[in-house]
């Protein structure tokens, strides 16, 4: 039997899936690699460890599910987190670790560009919000603050470009990853001269741009041997996690949107045109030359509930975060919806869409003498989901959303999915197994092979079997509370900044 392998280079590790040609999962495996925070705003990963972990997991998966059953691997398709930067020297050696999407070192550069006229122009041209996550600003930071590394950098790669370079020798960046660098013009499909000029680089210091269907060379002989793969195995460059999750949920077409909530989250739509926004709140990334994935990201998703669980969960079984979180969910489900008037602003990590305020902080609001511990649990979950709703609502001003799908480990917890359906007052669909990104990569490979005529056709075949229906009375309650949530999210602007600066002032001295 023929099969398709997908490799997802994620935030916390790598996930490898094997699909048959009909999109059924044959097997999957994951491997973790760490993120280093050597300084407060820094967030880095070791490219060699990512490479070795990827190779190791891929090999284990092949040996466990593919070779014993004599399946034949037709193609390997990549997906990756966006916004990473890895400078390499002229021999292709990494100059230090890769800088990940979560890195905030370029916050000053971001603030400057955001308030300049050039910022608006670059946002419109590149589709990437002006934010420290953007490789444009990370490279600019390096130009100012890490001059030696900047000087030695022969090329600025993404993590995916590096991994593919190791495997095949090709040096490419796919449209999706490139369109999230702030350096690519999403309308002309070339590197954007003004952005490059701002970052102080030329096109020779970036990899070549390639459509997501590009075959990125052949696997090197040694890897063919150690992985026991045939030489004709295709390596597809693939796309980004955000674009593929949207494709994997079949969001192509009018009125559809998808919600992803993992550690962080996003609400996305897909279509032939970009979302224009004076306030620069939305991203517009490329899946193909005529298909944009647009939406808004949040910093505060499942990681906030994890934080809450660590502080207030029950740990009778040491180190067992999962059962502690489950128990909290159960307690929360017994609290009346709306948490009897306790609201939570989830901005523990600052916030991107829709308020784009790095200084934002968390808050519980409306506390009265009758509130108990359990109200805090439910309020925390509801606060995370109000924030998702607020992104959806701002998106809805530009694109009518009729139906929703949800993916990601936090969003697909039944209790959360139902609240999402109630808040949006729309039916929410989902896939029972959690692999929208990898399924998107499968659809991409299958389209490339000609199984589907186009990505449109591929997306139309997606069926999401689970459905959560909205409940009218619940929606009314959430809508009432949301009004206050929305006002609070902007009302505290000055105080957010003030408390944030006190926090850094006093935590440095202690």
């Amino acid at each position, binding site marked *: 039997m023929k099969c398709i392998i997908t490799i997802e280079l994620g935030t916390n*590790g790598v996930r490898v899936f094997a699909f048959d040609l009909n999109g059924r999962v044959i097997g999957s*495996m*994951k*491997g*973790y*690699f*760490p993120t280093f925070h050597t300084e407060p705003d820094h967030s880095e990963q*070791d490219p*060699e*460890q990512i*490479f*070795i*972990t990827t*190779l*190791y*997991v891929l*090999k284990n998966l092949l040996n466990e599910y593919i070779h014993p059953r004599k399946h034949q691997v037709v193609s390997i398709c990549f997906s990756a987190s966006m916004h990473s930067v890895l400078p390499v020297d*002229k*021999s*292709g*050696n990494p100059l230090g670790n890769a800088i990940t999407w979560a890195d905030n070192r370029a916050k000053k550069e971001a603030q400057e560009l955001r308030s300049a006229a050039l910022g608006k122009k670059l946002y419109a041209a590149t589709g990437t919000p002006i934010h420290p996550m953007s490789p444009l600003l990370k490279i600019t930071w390096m130009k100012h603050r890490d001059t030696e590394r900047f000087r030695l950098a022969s090329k600025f790669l993404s993590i995916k470009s590096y991994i593919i370079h190791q495997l095949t*020798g090709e040096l490419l960046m796919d449209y999706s990853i490139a369109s999230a660098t702030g350096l690519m013009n999403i309308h002309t499909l070339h590197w954007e001269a003004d952005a490059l000029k701002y970052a102080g680089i030329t096109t020779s210091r970036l990899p070549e741009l390639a459509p997501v269907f590009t075959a990125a060379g052949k696997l*090197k*002989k*040694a*890897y*063919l*041997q*150690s*992985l026991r793969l045939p030489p004709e195995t295709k390596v597809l460059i693939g796309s980004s996690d955000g674009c593929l999750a949207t494709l994997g949920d079949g969001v192509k077409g009018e009125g559809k949107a998808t919600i992803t909530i993992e550690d962080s989250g996003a609400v996305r739509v897909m279509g032939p045109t970009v979302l224009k926004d004076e306030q620069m709140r939305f991203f517009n990334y490329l899946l193909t030359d005529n298909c944009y994935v647009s939406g808004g990201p949040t910093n505060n998703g499942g990681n906030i509930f994890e934080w809450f669980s*660590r*502080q207030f*969960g029950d*740990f009778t079984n*040491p*180190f067992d*975060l999962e059962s*502690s979180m489950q128990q909290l969910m159960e307690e929360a489900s017994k609290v009346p919806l709306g948490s009897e008037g306790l609201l939570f602003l989830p901005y523990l990590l600052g916030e991107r869409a829709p308020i784009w305020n790095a200084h934002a902080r968390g808050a519980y609001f409306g506390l009265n003498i009758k509130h108990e511990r359990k109200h805090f649990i439910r309020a925390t979950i509801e606060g995370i989901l109000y924030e998702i709703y607020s992104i959806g609502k701002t998106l809805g001003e530009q694109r009518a959303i009729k139906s929703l799908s949800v993916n990601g480990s936090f969003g697909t917890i039944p209790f959360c999915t139902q609240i999402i359906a109630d808040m949006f007052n729309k039916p929410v669909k989902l896939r029972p197994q959690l692999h929208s990104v990898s399924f998107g990569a499968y659809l991409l490979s299958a389209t490339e092979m000609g199984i589907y005529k186009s990505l449109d056709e591929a997306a139309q075949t997606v069926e999401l079997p689970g459905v959560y229906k909205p409940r009218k009375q619940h929606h009314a309650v959430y809508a009432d509370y949301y009004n206050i949530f929305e006002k609070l999210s902007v009302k505290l602007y000055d105080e957010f900044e003030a408390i944030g600066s006190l926090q850094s002032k006093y935590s440095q001295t202690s």
Partner: protein
Amino acid sequence: MNQFVLQHGKSAELLLFPHILEVGIKKNGAIQLNAFPATVTQSLRIYYIIDGRFEWRIDRLPYIIYPGDVVLILPGSSFGSDNGVLEIGSFTWIHLNIQKLDNGHLQPGSWSGLSESESAAIGKILSLNGSPVISKCSEVGKILRCIHTELFGNEVGYQASINHQLDELLIQIGRKMTRQSHSARDFPKSFMHLEAVLRQDLAHQWTVEEMAALVGMGTTLFTERVKSYSGFSPINYLINIRISEAIKLLKRPEISVTDIALDTGFYSSQHFSTTFKKLTGYRPSEFRKNHLRNS
């Protein structure tokens, strides 16, 4: 028990225990000057506070110590109080002659019943520990009291009993220390800590016992948690780190393959070569040649 001090070479009670350099109880009724000056010794010193409140300095950092607290002073660290002041209160202590290995790790002597890997693990915990004060550790008080009773009681089997108690003392302190610095609520954080320690000393022949002990877990639970968190067994995870460090070193032509093997924790260049080839398809020397040719 009344106050007393027994010292190696002076007290007959310690003849059978050359590894106990000093043991005693102090009950101090009035503030004394110049009674507790800072000293540096080559022994492992353990103090347990019975009552009172003491302000002591360990390696120049000030600590306030309360009843139930244990203070652990590593060989070569300075310990005492400012101006030698001894405050009111009582405490008990023991000084052990514990070998400090070349790599800085501590290892109990032949009197100990701990296996080699267990004592390496405990030694590692004690020498890597960030804080010399362990709070609320009454187990240590009980063990020390038991040692005193045995020393003066001379009942049959007291020699073995005391040596057992000393092992127990190290075990309890090691366990308490890791639990104090690792919240059972946060495996990712403990795992990151472990990851950093492994990277600092990749050449060491890490065992699962040592790794588990460093984050305060039993090996079974540890292996299970690492597997579900990382997708790898602890040893395979370690191999990931070793090979990724080796790749970086192989890209620098000035270091020999044998040195890289030993630096990254493989016990021979043969072992390195086999593991490297199994994972990457290249022998290390081929990988290097290929890389240098392409660049």
